């Protein structure tokens, strides 16, 4: 049993790298996912992942498979969409979901256009889907740095973020920090998605951000508790997914996300907080 779990990582450097990369994403992205969930912005993660695409595509076209160019391109495109949609939300009558949707769709269409017009080199979707089995040193350093930055930024933003989750009107009325918190948080979302697309691809990395957070909702009530459970779920999914891919010969990215999905499904059913069982199968009172 130990052999089945440990040997792949001992024998192959690419497995250790994949594991480190996934753990970095798990620790960095899941707290972001928890806040997204609490602010009812879970779908924003998906929207932002699409918004990154044109930037990464332009980066790829300018300088090939360069980590730096694609990361910077993705960051610029993601931040542009975050800022523009935030600006429209705060300054006009349009609500956040609609303005976000509008800008990410424009961005996505731009990305597809750029890819198709120049689509005769290496298939860009392959590039954008990344592969967790091919993480080189630069990619690992980037992943770990972004996770570190995320935690420092969260440490600074934690209190206003929690307030913004609980009562955004109150925060806006007592402090100037509301806008800064909002944009800072969106910047962190973009940063983590850009990190994730190196390893899992833009779309899969959203999975590792949102699914563990959604699962954690059924196990803990406090924010700290939820973040802890979410990280545990994400790390467990990463390890299990990698091992599944190794032993059962399955593609790695989907394997990891599907394990996270299975853990989410289990949580929906048996979790102690607000799950199906907790609500509809109340434990019989013990009779003495």
């Amino acid at each position, binding site marked *: 049993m130990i052999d089945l779990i440990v040997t792949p990582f001992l024998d192959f*450097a*690419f497995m250790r790298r994949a594991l480190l990369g996934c753990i970095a994403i798990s620790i960095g992205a899941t707290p972001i996912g928890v806040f997204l969930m609490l602010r009812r912005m879970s779908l924003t993660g998906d929207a932002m992942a699409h918004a990154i695409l044109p930037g990464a595509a332009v980066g790829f076209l300018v300088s090939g*498979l360069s980590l730096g160019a694609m990361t910077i391109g993705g960051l610029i495109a993601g931040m542009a969409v975050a800022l523009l949609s935030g600006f429209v939300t705060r300054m006009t009558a349009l609500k956040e979901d609609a303005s976000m949707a509008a800008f990410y769709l424009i961005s996505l269409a731009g990305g597809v256009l750029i890819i198709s017009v120049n689509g005769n080199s*290496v298939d860009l979707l392959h590039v954008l*889907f990344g592969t967790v089995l*091919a993480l080189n040193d630069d990619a690992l350093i980037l992943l770990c740095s972004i996770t570190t930055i995320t935690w420092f930024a969260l440490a600074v933003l934690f209190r206003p973020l929690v307030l913004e989750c609980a009562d955004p009107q109150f925060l806006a009325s007592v402090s100037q920090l509301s806008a800064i918190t909002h944009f800072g948080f969106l910047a962190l979302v973009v940063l983590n998605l850009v990190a994730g697309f190196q390893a899992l691809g833009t779309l899969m990395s959203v999975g590792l951000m949102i699914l563990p957070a959604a699962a954690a909702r059924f196990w803990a009530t406090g924010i700290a508790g939820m973040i802890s459970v979410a990280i545990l779920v994400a790390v467990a999914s990463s390890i299990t997914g990698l091992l599944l891919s190794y032993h059962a010969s399955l593609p*790695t990215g989907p394997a990891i996300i599907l394990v996270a999905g299975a853990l989410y499904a289990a949580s929906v059913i048996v979790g102690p907080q607000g799950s199906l069982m907790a609500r509809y199968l109340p434990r019989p009172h013990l009779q003495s």
Partner: protein
Amino acid sequence: MNRRILLGLTTAIAILPLSAFAQDKLPVVASFSILGDMVAEVGGERVTVTTLVGPDGDAHVYEPTPADAQTVAAAQVVFVNGLGFEGWLDRLIEASEYKGTIAVATEGVTALKMAEEGHDHAEGEEHDHAEEAGHDHGGTDPHAWQSIGNARIYVSNIAQALIAADPEGEAIYSANATAYLAELSAVDAEIQAAIASLPEARRSVVTSHDAFGYFAAAYGMTFHAPEGQSTEAEPSAADVAALITQMKAEAIPAVFVENITDSRLLEQITSETGAKIGGTLFSDALSGPDGPAGTYIAMMRHNVATLTAALKE
């Protein structure tokens, strides 16, 4: 005034069929750059070849454009590789309402199965997912042009299709085909000699996707790849691990990147096994005209030169 117009009109009418005649090259379409080059060699001056998937493009996952549909609709003959290589082409031909001839270049080629000769993996486990990867093409390997023996069949098929579509050009097509076939035979002999000069133990290499099955079978080399025959599938950790184990066991000296695929995975594999990157092989597409593989013959020569340079001790 009236006269002038009349004169102009008459001249125009008189010139029209003439200019149409001057333009009267046979418009044909080839699905990808390698096939396009062969068609151009056989067709010579009498045809205009349009290639749908251009140089360095990946024909496995191509997304056709409306312009492609127009090109196909206007063509007299459409040349395809067949063997499930261009999965997107059937829909394109249907959508463009093309009614002309579809010439399948691999007609008469002995198709290789994925897990056959040239892929003699040591472990039985390997065969399982090798077959899985082949499912995209119904279990056959479409990269038949990688052996010059097959390229000769391609050329005969192309010549036949062109003669059927344009019987007046028969003499020209036949002459072109004969000359081209002779050239191919010479290159074939060159490749045989080059591979024969390599020591037996150093005829095993790794590439990014399984495109060299026919080359392997024809010239006695062994190719391994983490991706299957189609570039669409994502490799699993098991595939990569099996490849690394095998490379270590057989002391495979070099890996080669391809012009159409993502090279990051191979770079990671080399760093783990100590094999070196031997260069770029052209598998499914030519380079641009100024590149090292502007034509099919240049491509085969380039691939063999790259292989032998890296594998010589």
